[in-house]
């Protein structure tokens, strides 16, 4: 639609934004090629939401240039708004109204012709598996359904660029998986997506490119694989109760990856970095240890967390992480992996 010469749907350069003395964004740069997914990863308070608010015309940047589908977000805010969709942690749906009413109202407010709103709403309700509950008040929906309805509302006018601010925060593992499926399908249809998340695993699952944001700056960027390599990838860990078997154990798992296993003799604990081949390595490790006759305890695969990324990139742990959010990600992640 947009008459742009660029292959990028989103281009951000030297973006600064302060609130009084708080320097929320300190010169952010990135570009998102059309039809791809950018995952913006960072702890709470890193500046992710501020960046999204500037990109979606809700906040004026102090300086810097942001072009969305060829339009400047400051000078051509109205044109930008016609091309973007936004969904986030806070839902815009009115809980007293039905799913269908919510979508139809959003369609009308996006200036869609009355004739096409109904059909589009019905189509989205069907696609997002809300059709059965379409005529019930949204307050009777599960958290996952409400989030899907909210996402549907942001898609009603078929935006070419979609912003999702922590779309799965607060969802249970099942709701999270459902959301991931929907997001993948959207991207398959050519939508450009900017997604913020506190979960490395989520960015890994969905994004083509990840930018890690901390204290208002991009501290690392690249493909998920590159980022995970920087961290060292998955880590296989187990305990060998019988000290005499420690050496056998190390030998058994030595060939699992390029990196050498590390053992803590006192704790009888062995760690093996296994790159991105986590689950295969897990199976292989069990097989080899069994063949070598080594008895193990607590054999587990740890996926790198946001904390690990921060440790690898900045040398310090992620600060201002919300209670349990950054830590708690390991449990749903493990559930997904197994």
């Amino acid at each position, binding site marked *: 639609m*947009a*008459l*742009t*010469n*660029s*292959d*990028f749907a989103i*281009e951000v*350069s030297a973006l600064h934004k302060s609130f009084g003395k708080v320097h929320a964004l300190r010169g952010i740069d990135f*570009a998102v090629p059309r039809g791809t997914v950018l995952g913006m990863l960072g702890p709470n308070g890193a500046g992710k939401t501020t960046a999204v*608010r500037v990109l*979606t*015309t*809700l*906040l004026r940047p102090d300086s810097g*240039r942001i*072009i969305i*589908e*060829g*339009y*400047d977000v400051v*000078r*051509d805010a*109205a*044109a930008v*708004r*016609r091309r*973007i969709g*936004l969904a*986030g*942690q*806070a*839902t*815009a749906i*009115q809980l*007293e*109204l039905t799913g269908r*009413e919510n979508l139809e*109202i*959003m369609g*009308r*407010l*996006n*200036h869609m012709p009355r004739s096409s709103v109904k059909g589009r709403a019905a189509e989205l309700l069907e696609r997002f598996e809300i059709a059965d509950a379409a005529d019930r*008040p949204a307050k009777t929906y599960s958290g996952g359904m409400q989030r899907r309805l909210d996402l549907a509302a*942001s898609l009603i*006018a078929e935006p070419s660029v979609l912003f999702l601010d922590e779309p799965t925060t607060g969802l249970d593992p099942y709701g999270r998986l459902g959301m991931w499926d929907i997001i993948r399908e959207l991207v398959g249809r050519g939508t450009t997506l900017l997604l913020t998340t506190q979960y490395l695993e989520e960015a890994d699952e969905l994004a083509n490119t990840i930018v890690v944001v901390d204290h208002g700056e991009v501290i690392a960027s690249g493909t998920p694989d590159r980022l995970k390599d920087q961290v060292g990838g998955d880590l296989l860990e187990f305990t060998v109760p019988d000290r005499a078997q420690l050496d056998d154990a190390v030998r058994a798992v030595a060939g699992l990856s390029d990196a050498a296993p590390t053992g803590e003799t006192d704790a009888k604990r062995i760690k093996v970095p296994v790159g991105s081949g986590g689950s295969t390595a897990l199976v292989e490790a069990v097989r080899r240890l069994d063949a070598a006759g080594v008895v193990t305890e607590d054999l587990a695969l740890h996926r790198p967390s946001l904390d690990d990324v921060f440790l690898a990139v900045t040398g310090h742990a992620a600060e201002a992480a919300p209670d349990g959010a950054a830590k708690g990600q390991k449990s749903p992640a493990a559930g997904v992996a197994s």
Partner: protein
Amino acid sequence: MTAIAGPLNTRARPSAAQMARWAISDSLVMTRRNLLVWLRVPAYIVFTVVQPVIFVLLFRYVFGGAIHAPGTGGYVSYLMPGIIGQTAAFATFATAIALAQEATKGVIDRFRAMPMARSAVLAGRLIADSIRMLIVILVIIGVGYAVGFRFQNGVAGAVGMVLLAEIFGITICSVSAFVGLVIKDEESVQAFGLIWIFPLTFVSSAFVPIATMPGWLQVFANDQPVTLVINAMRAMALGGPAFPLNPSLWESLLWLAGILIVFVPLAVWSYRRVG
């Protein structure tokens, strides 16, 4: 060539007429949305309709016997314009609370990232609230008729009274919209609303003749806008000196215009800085 270096798109912007049409249709969509929510929540109906009805019955039958009202038609006739004015003022609680909720929940942000007219959130809220107010006023008049109230000044007087009550309500709505958007915290909004709306409506001529109040209170009660509005409503409903050009009508309209001139821009300003 990248767009950073290259020329920006400059597509023709919508015409002023198109923008105006969108502003109207967006406001009406928001009005419909707000009214639907009101109709769906029994608690809102109870708060907005049942409560004023209870006030009518309480004042008519519990306090009515003890209050000696001037004029014809007894206390119920004196009371009804007061209750209607109070109802219009109280209805604006909902305006403040709804806007505060939308501001804190991030709903307003979402609307602002959409191409809809910027004015539609406030306009849709005010239109919906004035429609709701009108419905409640008509219900109360019905209840008033059941307990002995009669308009004594013809249809024009009755319509005039309802109109003034509406203008009064919309004016207070603009104050409430500002209060709701500035305070934003729902419970604080509720508490603060009680602090300023209750004294204004009770320390007025709404329920009792001001002459029965202590002298120091009369000073305030006599000249405050709620008293002027209710005196004018009473004059239109019941007939009074120099109808329809009762001086309180002009004085109250002046007051209301003054409040609107101050608070509509303040409400718009507070709406812009939400978030």
